[in-house]
């Protein structure tokens, strides 16, 4: 199910040349902000929770997820070089699965790891906040990568639709309509984080069982459907 060559090519497409630097800028910014906040405000659990929840989990993880998830397959479909990959005797679900693993790994490294570091800088993992948000970021990485990889195979405008989901649906509608929060990867991962932290600092609108089921279902379904989609892929010309 895992093809090392496909994985190597995907890593190079995602991180090759200067792209790793650009991807690395976001986590560095998060860590820099944490240092500033720690200097300004000292160690404070509420501040740490706000910063990690508002900046790291709500904006950084989805954006890195969009870049890694759609970037793993989108450009190849876009410029048509995916036919050389599809022409090889590799099963298409295998290609998707491998790309998913790579996208998950990249998202985790560039979002969950900085979250952990930032958490430790902010309050030294007081009340398990750093670990809780890191777990949330890890869980969210998996779901986001799977969802956005599917988007990459479905649409040429995958990045925009991914961002619309992450920013408009989760952030805007999520804050206005509470029902929208039930259908949000962010809230599902917060439910897991709530379980880890235990306290009242990390809260979610979704119960843990619902969240886990939805996370698993979304990830599996998205991966399966992306594999199906790749089997019947038609290459369209540039619009």
């Amino acid at each position, binding site marked *: 199910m895992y093809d090392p060559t496909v994985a190597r090519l995907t890593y190079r497409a995602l991180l090759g040349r200067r792209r790793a630097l650009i991807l690395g800028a*976001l986590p560095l910014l998060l860590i820099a902000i944490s240092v500033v906040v720690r200097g300004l405000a000292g160690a404070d659990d509420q501040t740490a929770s*706000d910063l990690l929840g508002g900046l790291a989990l709500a904006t950084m993880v989805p*954006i890195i997820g969009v870049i890694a998830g759609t970037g793993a397959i989108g450009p190849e479909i876009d410029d048509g070089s995916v036919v050389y990959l599809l022409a090889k005797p590799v099963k298409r679900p295998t290609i998707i699965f491998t790309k998913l693993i790579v996208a998950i790994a990249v998202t985790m490294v560039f979002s969950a790891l900085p979250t952990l570091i930032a958490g430790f800088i902010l309050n030294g993992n007081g009340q398990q906040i750093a670990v809780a948000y890191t777990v949330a970021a890890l869980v969210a990485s998996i779901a986001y990568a799977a969802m956005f990889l599917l988007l990459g195979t479905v649409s040429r405008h995958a990045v925009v639709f991914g*961002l619309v989901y992450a920013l408009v649906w989760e952030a805007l509608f999520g804050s206005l309509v509470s029902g929208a929060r039930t259908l949000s990867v962010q809230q599902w991962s917060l439910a897991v984080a709530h379980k880890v932290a235990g306290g009242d600092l990390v809260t979610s609108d979704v119960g843990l069982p619902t969240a886990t089921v939805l996370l698993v279902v979304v990830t599996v379904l998205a991966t399966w459907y992306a594999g199906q989609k790749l089997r019947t892929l038609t290459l369209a010309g540039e619009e």
Partner: protein
Amino acid sequence: MAVEQPVRTPVAPSGDQTRIHNIGYRTYDGPRLGRTYATRSLYSQSLRGAYGLGRSVKSKVLPMLLFVVMCVPAAIMVAVAVATKAKDLPVDYTRYAILMQAVISLYVASQAPQSVSRDLRFKTVPLYFSRPIETADYVRAKYAALASALFVLTAAPLLVLYIGALLAKLDFADQTKGFAQGLVSVTLLSLLFAGIGLVIASVTPRRGFGIAAVIAVMTISYGAVSTLQAIAEAQNSTGAIPWIGLFSPVTLIDGVQSAFLGATSAFPGAVGPTNGEGVVYVLVVLGLIAASYGLLLRRYRKVGL
């Protein structure tokens, strides 16, 4: 005009057989429309392209959708104001763009790469420069087109609000003043956002990557700034709030309009910049606009040639 070709009488093959045939190519001697015309065409094509006009149906969907999403809340507010006979609109003209900043950022992120990245990727930039236009004309046309598209996007809902306010018989002088202030603010916003978006998009030939980079700059900087401001307010260091606001495009516009255009600031605790700090805001905004224009010129001086 056609020059009669002298009919060559077949002569007996003697000596050199090679000759250059005049096959009747003619030089163009009609009017030449020149540099200004080419620049204007590029501008109008880019502006139409920013809303998907003259492109495929698929590429019309997103810009039109975002345009509708921008205008619908304004229409709803107007409807509410008319129905309830309110004394004032529920939202200030200047506040509207700040509220809808996610939509505006998405629009810039999707249309700036559309405007420049594809020219880079398909290497059509040298073709433009084989026409009479210069680097500066290309940059000006693209910049003006995206800024105009953004202005249309941000000013249309203000117009809806204004017309609605007049229909609801609100105070004419008051509403006109607010509307004018709103227009000044969205003009600045359009120029600033278009500049930032184009600079980022012109670096990468990959459309997808450009979109993500633009949105990352817009939203992450806003997220970071507003988090820091909230913390500064919690720490009672309200003096720092306006200075932090200098680091993200949205808060820059917010600061300018709350200092000079009579808007209430969206900063935490509504601590807008004072007039002195407002001058710094204006200078930074104008500096950023000039800097992005300069960077674009530098970028296109060498590209594709």
